[in-house]
C-alpha cells in the first residue's frame, strides 16, 4: 500500500477517533460511577446536535458559541432525567446493587420516548447547518487535507477529557464523585449526598454531549435518529478502553477510529465493521476490564 495513502488514513482515523472517544466519555463516566448503562446516550447526543442547529437556524448563532447554551441545557436534562426517572429505582433497591436489566430497560424507554417526541416535533427530515468555515481545509501536500472543523472537534475532544480528569482528581466535587464510584455506602457515611452526586454525574455525562454536539454540527447532519450511528460504537469504546476510565475512553475511540479508517482501505466498508468487532472480542477475551480499566 502507498505509504502516503496509509498516512492519510491514519490521520483521518485519529481525527474521527478523538470524536468517538469524546462521545463515549459521558457513557463511561455514568457507568463508572453509577453502574447504569445509559441506553439513551444517542438520544442525548441528538439533543446536543439539535440545540446548536436551531440556534443557528433561528438566530444565526455560530455553533461554537452555542456551547454556552447547549452544555447547561444538556446538564439540566441529564440532571432532571436522573432525579425524576432513574432515582426512584435506586431508592427502591437501596440495599442491593442496582438491577442492571431494569435500569437498562428504563433508559432505553426514555430514549425511545424522547426520540419519537423529537420526530413528532421536527419530522423525519435530515438537516445540516451551513457555515462558511465548515469547508475550510488545511492542505499538506496534494493528498492530505485536514478539515478545520474536524481538527477543532478533535482538539475539543481531548480538551474535554483532560478537563474532566482534572475536575475529578483536583476538586472536592470530583473527589466526591470518585469516592461514590468506589464505595457508595462509605461515601454516604462520610457525609456525601449520594443521590445528589448521582444527579450531578448524570448531568455531567450529558453536558459533555452538549459540547460534543456543538463542535460536531458544522460537519455533520442532524436528524431524530442521528444518535444511532454513535450509540453502538460508544459501547464498544467504553468496554475497549475500560469502564469508567477517562483516558481509556479517548484511547478506545482512537483505536476504533484508526482501525476503521485503515481496514476500509483494504476491504469494503461493510466488511471493515467486522474488524472493529473482532478487536472488541479480543479485548474482552484477554483483558475483560478494558485496556485502561482497573483490575477489580
Amino acid at each position, binding site marked *: 500500500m502507498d505509504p502516503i*495513502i496509509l498516512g492519510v488514513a491514519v490521520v483521518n482515523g485519529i481525527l474521527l477517533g478523538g470524536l468517538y472517544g469524546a462521545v463515549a466519555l459521558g457513557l463511561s463516566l455514568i457507568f463508572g460511577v453509577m453502574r447504569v448503562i445509559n441506553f439513551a446516550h444517542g438520544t442525548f447526543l441528538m439533543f446536543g446536535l439539535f440545540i446548536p442547529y436551531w440556534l443557528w437556524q433561528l438566530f444565526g448563532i455560530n455553533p461554537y458559541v452555542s456551547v454556552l447554551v447547549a452544555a447547561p441545557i444538556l446538564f439540566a436534562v441529564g440532571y432532571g432525567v436522573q432525579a425524576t426517572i432513574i432515582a426512584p429505582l435506586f431508592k427502591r433497591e437501596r440495599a442491593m446493587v442496582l438491577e442492571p436489566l431494569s435500569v437498562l430497560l428504563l433508559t432505553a424507554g426514555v430514549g425511545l420516548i424522547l426520540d419519537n417526541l423529537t420526530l413528532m416535533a421536527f419530522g423525519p*427530515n435530515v*438537516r445540516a447547518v*451551513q457555515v462558511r468555515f465548515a469547508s475550510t481545509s488545511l492542505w499538506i501536500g496534494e493528498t492530505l487535507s485536514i478539515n478545520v472543523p474536524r481538527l477543532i472537534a478533535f482538539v475539543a475532544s481531548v480538551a474535554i477529557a483532560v478537563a474532566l480528569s482534572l475536575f475529578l482528581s483536583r476538586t472536592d466535587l470530583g473527589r466526591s464523585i470518585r469516592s461514590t464510584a468506589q464505595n457508595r455506602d462509605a461515601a454516604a457515611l462520610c457525609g456525601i449526598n449520594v443521590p445528589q452526586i448521582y444527579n450531578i454525574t448524570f448531568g455531567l455525562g450529558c453536558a459533555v454531549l452538549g459540547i460534543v454536539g456543538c463542535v460536531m454540527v458544522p*460537519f455533520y447532519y442532524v436528524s431524530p435518529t442521528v444518535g444511532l450511528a*454513535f450509540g453502538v*460504537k460508544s459501547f464498544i469504546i467504553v468496554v475497549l478502553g475500560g469502564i469508567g476510565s477517562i483516558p481509556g475512553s479517548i484511547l478506545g475511540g482512537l483505536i476504533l477510529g484508526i482501525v476503521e479508517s485503515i481496514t476500509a482501505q483494504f476491504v*469494503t466498508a461493510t466488511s471493515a465493521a467486522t474488524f472493529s468487532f473482532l478487536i472488541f472480542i479480543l479485548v474482552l477475551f484477554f483483558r475483560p476490564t478494558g485496556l485502561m480499566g482497573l483490575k477489580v
Partner: protein
Amino acid sequence: MKRLLCGIGICLVVLALSSLTAVAGEKVDEVRIGIVVPLSGIGATVGTQMKTGATIAIEEINAKGGIKALGGAKLRLIAGDSQGKPDVGASETERLIQRENVHVMIGSYQSATTIVTTEVAERYKTPWVVLASVSDRITGRGFKYVFRPCNMAAYDANEQLQAIKHLTQEFGKGPKTYGLLVEGTEWGKSHAENVRRIAKEIGYDLVLDEAYPPGQADFSPQILKIRSKRPDFLIMAMYTPDHILFNKQQMEQRLDLAFGLHSVGSGAEDPAFYKALPVQAVEYMFVQEDFQIDITDVAPWTQAIDKKTREMLGYELNAYVAQGYSNAYIIADALERAGSADKDKIRDALAKTNITSGPALITGYQKIAFDATGQNVDSHGVISENLKGKRTTVWPVANRPKGIKPVWPIPAWKDR
C-alpha cells in the same frame, strides 16, 4: 360531549347515505377511482403527495365537465390507507372494490404492497394503474388488469449509463473507468448489480466497488479510496443522511472526478438534501430523477399545478405528485375511449392507451402506451446536472430545456 356524539352521529349518517347512493347509482353519473397508498406510517409523505396529485387532476377534469363519453360523469377519488404494509393494503383494496364499488384503482408506492394489492384487484377483475412501484415482478406475472406507466427498477441504471454514453458522443470526451459507492442493503446492492451488467456491455472498467452500512459517521476512508483508485466517474446510491455527509466531505476534501458524481436519486431527490447543503457541495453532480425536475420551465402549463401543490402541501410539485396527477388523466383518457364504466371495457381501453400529448405527460415522458405485460415501454426518468445551483435536465436530449449546455468534463476544484 353531547355535541361531539351528535357530530359523530351526523358523520355516520352522512357516510351511510353516501355509500347508499353509491350502490344505487347504476346509471353512470360518477366514476369512482380507488387509491391505496400509505397515508400514515412509513412513506406517508409520499402517499399524501400522490393523493394530492390525483385530487388536483380530478378537480380539473370535473371542472371541465367530467367524462364527455359518459354524459359528463364526474370522477370521485376514494382513498384507502395502506400504512405501507402489504396486508393492510390488500384489505383496503378489498374494501374499496367490495364496499365502495370502485371502477378502477391506482397505487400503492411500496413495491411489496403493490405486488399484493394488484393481486387482489386482478382477482376482482378491477383495472389497476400502478403508482411509482418499480419492482420488475409487478408486470412480470401475466396479469391482465395491471398497467404501469412508470419506470421499472432496471431502467434507472440504464439511464445513468446511457446519459454518460450520450454526453461522451456529444462532447467527444468520455470516461474509461468507473467506481461504485452504494449503501449495502437491498436497494444499493441491486442497483450496483444492474450498473455492473450494463457498464460491462458499454465497456467501462470497474476500478472501485464499494458498499457501506447506512448511517456512516465519516466518509474520509471511502473518499481516500476513491482518490487512490482514480475512477473517471462514480455511481452512487445513498439515502439522505449519508448523501449529505458524502457531499459535504467530497467538497471539503476537494475530490476531483473528471466525469463527475452520478447519483441514482433517493437522497439526492429529497428536498431536504438541497436545503442542508451549500450550492458548491452539489454543483455539477448528476442525478437520475424519476420525473422531469425542471418541468415548470419546459412546459409552462404545469406552473398552475405547481402553484396548487404549494397551496395544498406547502412545497413544490415533485415526482410523486406528478405521477398521481398523470395516472388520473390516463384513466380519464381510457374512460373517454371506453364510453362505459364497465371494468372490462375500461381495461380494454387502458390496454389500447396511446397518449402522446396532454396533461398525462406531466411526468416528462414522450408517450404512454402499454405493452402486453402492461408496462409503459416509453417511460423514462431524466438525468439532471446541478448547474449554478439548479437541477437542470441534460438527458434525454428531447427533455433538455432550450439553451442549456451540460458541463462535461467536470472542472477540477482548483478551477471552480
